[in-house]
Structures are given as structure tokens and as C-alpha cells.
């Protein structure tokens, strides 16, 4: 996240803009209704899903606690398998390593599979600046590449696009004459046709990895389209771009992850392709890459490991927290201004970049807790967001008025008697002001609320007053 010289609008402004487009809002609403149902169905029929979740959490915890051991074992095994293993401290270094490999092979065409890590480092843009032709081969990534956008979702990058919008992009990009292209099937068929040549002619394939298996040096790739596997098998050189925390001890641990990931990400029992790659083609093989590289990005992950936020490294990038977040559903992925949106992104973006650059993201939360409930890694996302808000306040980040307000609130909350009498006074005043209509059209310090809707005038006393009354009633 180092190559973002021009900061976009903040989350609040971007979210307001996103809410102004009714068609996009309707599409997000549809997805927010549909995707949780798909997950729920396969989770319910699994049986011991909670036990699976706990098992994988313990497993990942064990791996991170012994990361030194597993990382060195993976490096040894992957090298033994014939890979070249590279370490990259940051985005620039990962991009430079990949560019260097491309140059060594005189490559011009690159077939790239879906990888959030390469989104994080902005690899495609870095290669294109050096006049390399990079085609995103995952359909969703291809659509956002044509649109000149970033992915709006870590699993479904183009889910925010309608069929009509994708049709326009395809008509402009593919010189294939007149055609209808008014159905998803027709758009998929055209992408298949256009992409086939690219797969066959690319000199370099770039993919990500869902996990790295320490005991045998395999990298794991989970897809539905098969594009990642085409990138991994057809070009003469394969580069796997991933991060150094993606480790699992054994092959059977990948089996546990496989169960959890597919169900949490897309509501499938199993994706169409789950592949494991060990290295370059063996003797007597007539196909497969002749050379394979694995680039392991750190980009502050070893700092996160040392911090109170280390649980965030357990994230398996399934997107379940995005699919269940009311803020994500309302604002959409682009509003976050980070390649990682939603609850996981609101934690990760400040950690990978800086809290100053993403100061509004920890507040992009209603504290409903659904993200933690569905997170397959059981990451306490609402707690981590609250901790980031605490860091913000401690480091003096955010508008001064807001921070003063919070300090005042904290001061009052520590004085219950004063807090209760002021609440009582406020409730009485609001009752008085709204007694005619039952609602208030204007409230001091709350124009953000009353600008769009009326504020209902309080119907009864404060919570504490009602609580005391209830206690008295029970005692009598």
C-alpha cells in the first residue's frame, strides 16, 4: 500500500456519493440479501462447522506462534522442489522482483490470475508502466481492469457492475462486430473467447496463493473459473505472489482450510478447482512452466505479528465479513479507498498503510458484530476496530471537534450521577420541544441526522429512570 500518492475522498464522502446512485444501491442490497443465505445453507448442512472453525483458528495460531520454523521449512522444501523463493520487504520490492524476472525472459505478455496481494502492491500498473501487456484473467478482475477501477470486493471484484455496464465495457474493448451481449452467459462466453489467445501466448503467468504448505513446499490455489490454473500451467514461467504469513504446516491442514474457505467465501461446498503446485515441470513432462518463482511479501506483516493486532494475520480472505456487514452493503467496496474493504479492510488498511491515511475506516462500523460471528478465523473484528479507534484518539488523529466530544463523553461517563441528571434534563427538553409533532425537525449538534430525517421525540424517561421504576415495581 505504498503507491497511493493521491489520496481519494475520505470514507464518509465516498460513502455519501455511493448512496446517491439508486441502481448501485439496489444491486448492493440484492447481494447483501443473497450472499449470506448461500453461506448459511452450506454451513448448516456441514454439521460441526463451529468445531472446524475452532480447529482452524488453533491451527493458524500454532503456525503463527512458530512462524519462524514453518517459514524456513517451506523455503527449504519449495527450493528443493525447484522453485526460486524471493522475499520482498514492501510493495516496491515485490514489483521490482517480478519485473526483473519478466525482463530476464524478455517477456511482453503476462497472464495474471486473481491475487489480492498483487492488488495491494499495484503490480499490474507497475508492469504496465514498463510497457508489459498484463491481462487480468479472472473475469471479475478483467471487468474492473477494463473499467479502470479497483476491485470492489475481495472475492467478487466486479459484483458492483450491472450486466448493462459490463456489456458497454465489452463492446468498447472487443472489436467483434454487432452483437447483443444482454445476458451473463453471453458475456462469459465472449470473455472466454477473447482470453483464450492470451493464455496461449503469454510468456509469464502470475498467480496468488491461498496457502503455503510447509511440509512439502506446495502452494495452494482455490478458484472456480480455472483461469488461475491456466496461468499456472500454460506460460513457460510461473510467478506465485503471496505473503509470508500464509503458511500451514501440512497438506491435511489445507484440507481443513479448503472446507472453511469455500463455504465462507461463496457458499459452495467446494470450489471447482483446488490446486497445489510444487514447482517447475519435471523431466519427461512436455508441458508446464520451465521456471517457477515464489515471492513472499512482508509489507509490515511481521510488524503486525508483533502487535496487538496479530489475530488479523489469521484472515483467510474469504470476504464473509464483507458480505454480512451493513456498512459495506450500504457504502460498497470502493468507498473504503483501500484494496481491502469491509470490516477486515477497515482493520488491515490502517495496519498495512497508516492510521492517518485511513482514519475514518475504524469508525465504519455499527458494532453489530455480524462480521465476528461469520468470520471463519473467528477474528474479533469489532474489538480490533474499537482498539484502532482507541489508537486514533491516543494519537490525536481525526477532527479536533470529534475528539473533544469523545473526551467530554468519557469525562461524563466516568461521573454517573452527573451523566444521569444531564440525560434526564436532555430527555425532558426534547419531550417539551417535540410535544406537538412527536418528532423534532432540528437538533443542535445533530444536523447530520435531522438533515435527512426527523428525530423522534423521546417517549418515556431515561433508561436509568425506567430501570429504577421497573425494579421498584418488582420489589413491591
Amino acid at each position, binding site marked *: 500500500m505504498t503507491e497511493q500518492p493521491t489520496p481519494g475522498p475520505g470514507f464518509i464522502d465516498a460513502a455519501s456519493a455511493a448512496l446517491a446512485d439508486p441502481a448501485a444501491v439496489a444491486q448492493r442490497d*440484492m*447481494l447483501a440479501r443473497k450472499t449470506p443465505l448461500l453461506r448459511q445453507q452450506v454451513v448448516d*448442512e*456441514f454439521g460441526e462447522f463451529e468445531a*472446524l472453525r475452532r*480447529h*482452524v483458528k488453533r*491451527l493458524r495460531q500454532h503456525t503463527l*506462534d*512458530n*512462524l*519462524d*520454523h514453518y*517459514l524456513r521449512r517451506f523455503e527449504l522444501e519449495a527450493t528443493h522442489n525447484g522453485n526460486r523463493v524471493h*522475499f520482498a*520487504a514492501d510493495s516496491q*520490492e515485490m514489483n521490482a*522482483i517480478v519485473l526483473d524476472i519478466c525482463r530476464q525472459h524478455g517477456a511482453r505478455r503476462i497472464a495474471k490470475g486473481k491475487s489480492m496481494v498483487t492488488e495491494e502492491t499495484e503490480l499490474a500498473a507497475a508492469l504496465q508502466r514498463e510497457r508489459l501487456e498484463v491481462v487480468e484473467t*479472472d473475469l471479475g478482475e478483467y471487468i474492473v481492469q477494463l473499467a479502470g477501477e479497483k476491485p470492489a470486493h475481495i472475492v*467478487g471484484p466486479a*459484483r458492483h*457492475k*450491472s450486466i448493462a455496464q459490463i456489456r458497454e465495457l465489452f463492446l468498447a474493448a472487443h472489436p467483434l462486430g454487432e452483437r447483443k451481449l444482454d445476458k*451473463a452467459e453471453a*458475456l*462469459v462466453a465472449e*470473455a*472466454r473467447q477473447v482470453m483464450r489467445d492470451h*493464455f496461449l501466448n503469454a510468456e509469464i503467468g502470475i498467480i496468488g496463493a491461498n496457502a503455503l504448505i510447509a511440509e*512439502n513446499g*506446495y502452494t495452494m490455489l482455490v478458484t*472456480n*473459473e*480455472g*483461469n488461475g*490454473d491456466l496461468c499456472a*500451467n500454460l506460460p513457460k514461467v510461473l510467478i506465485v505472489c503471496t505473503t*509470508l504469513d500464509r503458511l500451514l504446516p501440512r497438506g*491435511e491442514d489445507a*484440507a*481443513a482450510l*479448503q*472446507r472453511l474457505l469455500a463455504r465462507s467465501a461463496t457458499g459452495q*461446498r*467446494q*470450489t*471447482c*478447482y483446488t*490446486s*497445489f503446485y*510444487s514447482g517447475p515441470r519435471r523431466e*519427461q*513432462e*512436455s*508441458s*508446464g512452466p520451465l521456471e517457477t518463482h515464489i515471492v513472499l511479501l*512482508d509489507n509490515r506483516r*511481521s*510488524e503486525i505479528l*508483533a502487535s496487538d493486532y496479530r489475530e488479523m494475520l489469521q484472515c483467510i480472505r474469504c470476504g464473509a465479513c464483507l458480505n454480512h456487514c451493513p456498512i459495506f452493503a450500504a457504502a460498497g467496496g470502493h468507498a473504503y479507498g483501500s484494496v481491502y474493504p469491509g470490516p477486515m479492510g477497515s482493520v488491515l488498511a490502517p495496519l498495512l498503510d497508516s492510521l492517518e491515511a485511513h482514519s475514518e475506516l475504524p469508525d465504519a462500523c455499527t458494532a453489530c458484530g455480524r462480521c465476528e460471528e461469520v468470520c471463519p478465523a473467528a477474528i474479533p473484528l469489532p474489538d480490533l476496530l474499537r482498539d484502532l479507534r482507541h489508537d486514533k484518539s491516543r494519537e490525536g488523529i481525526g477532527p479536533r471537534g470529534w475528539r473533544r466530544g469523545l473526551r467530554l463523553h468519557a469525562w461524563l461517563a466516568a461521573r454517573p450521577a452527573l451523566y444521569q441528571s444531564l440525560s434526564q434534563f436532555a430527555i425532558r427538553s426534547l419531550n417539551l420541544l417535540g410535544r406537538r409533532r412527536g418528532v423534532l425537525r432540528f437538533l443542535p449538534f445533530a444536523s447530520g441526522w435531522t438533515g435527512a430525517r426527523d428525530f423522534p421525540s423521546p417517549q418515556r424517561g431515561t433508561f436509568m429512570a425506567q430501570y429504577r421504576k421497573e425494579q421498584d415495581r418488582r420489589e413491591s
Partner: protein
Amino acid sequence: MSHDSRKKSLARIRGLSSGLDAQTIAQELARLGAAPVAQPLDPDPIVCFMANVLRNQGSLALAADRREVVKAIGKYLYRHLRNNRLVAGNDPHLAALPWREGGVLPRFGEIENGEKAALSYAHWGIAETGATVLGSGKHNPPANQLLPEHHIVLLEFEGIIPDLEAFWRAEPLRRGERPRGISFIAGPSSTGDIEAQLVYGAHGPKAWHVILLGKAPPGALERARQLAGVPGDGDEAAL
């Protein structure tokens, strides 16, 4: 550059790791036990496998012997492509099939432009997921499973194993064999990237057909169809 970064990252991580020796780490890992598996659809792994293939939008055919395998392939090719052309990997299991008797003309090798159907031999099938497991190698060029419109997989009943862990415990891997690629294939290529609508034939095969060779337990296919909610269709359970 990469070497410096390696040293720095590993040094930082070393300082944060437990510092336990390899044996203690292995003992800790063993104490975590096994992961729960998905509730089986049926007590019989063969029925489970077949039901899951059908749930994964695959189609199935049963063949009691090798002659029937060729017949089933011929029938599938005629039904879907109205021809008898096929490319097959150089797997001895495929080369040994009595092709002439079934009237199918396979070309052995890697798929080329314009060829629509390819046949692979899978050593394993996973009952838990309905996936066929293919290892890449000289016998199985991966293009044959990724580029055709119709991917046909031959699997023997003995190759059906209960779950994903059983694959990783299988003998060849325990011996240290590491095929370049291992693919768990569970359905035709698909995408949900456009308005979350599921479309088949994204980049890879549009259809995935599994032929099971050997003696099927009586009533297994009917039971599998029932569990998957897929009606019967002669000797081929197709969606």
C-alpha cells in the same frame, strides 16, 4: 535486495516465534487433533462420491469393464458433439482401453486448438466433495483438463477415498512423491462474477463427465441421484 529482505524478515519473525525445537512443535501440532469433516450424505463413500459429483453439476456414467468405458465415452461424445473424436493423455490406463471396439478414435497427447473433448485418468475421487484428483505429469498434460469444452474423467471405484485428509495420507505422497501439480476438480469451470449469476464454462470446460469403472454396489447410482435431487437418465446421470 531480496536477500537483505529475507534476512530482516526472518530475523524479526524469529524474535517473535516460540523458539521451540522441531520435535516439540510437531508434538504441539499433533495435539491439535484432526479437523471435522462434512457430514456424509450417505454411509457408503461410493454413494457419497456419486451424489456429490451430481451436486457439483457433473454427469456420471458407470462401466463394469474397460469395454463399457469405451462404449460410455462413445455414447457421451455422440450425444454432446455428434462425433467420436477425443484427445487422451498418455496414461497407460487409457492406452490400454479397447478403443477399436467402441468406435472411438482417441489421439494421445496434449489438446490442440479446435479439439473439444479430452479424457483424463484420475487415481482418486474424494467422497466428501465429489472431486476427482488429477496429478500433472507426462501421463496427464494439465491442458487436457483445462482447455476442452468437455472434460471426461475415468476413475476406478477402488480410487474413491472418504475425505480430503485421506488423499494427503495416500501412499505415493507419504513416500515423498510430489507431482508438479495436484488438481481437485469438482465440476465444470464456473463464475459468479456477473451479478452473482452462476455461469458454466468460464475459462475451462463447460461440461465435466465422470465415468466410474468397476462393480458398483447395487442401487448406488439411484441412491446418489435421489440424494442429489437429479432424476435418472438411462445409464448416464446428466444434468
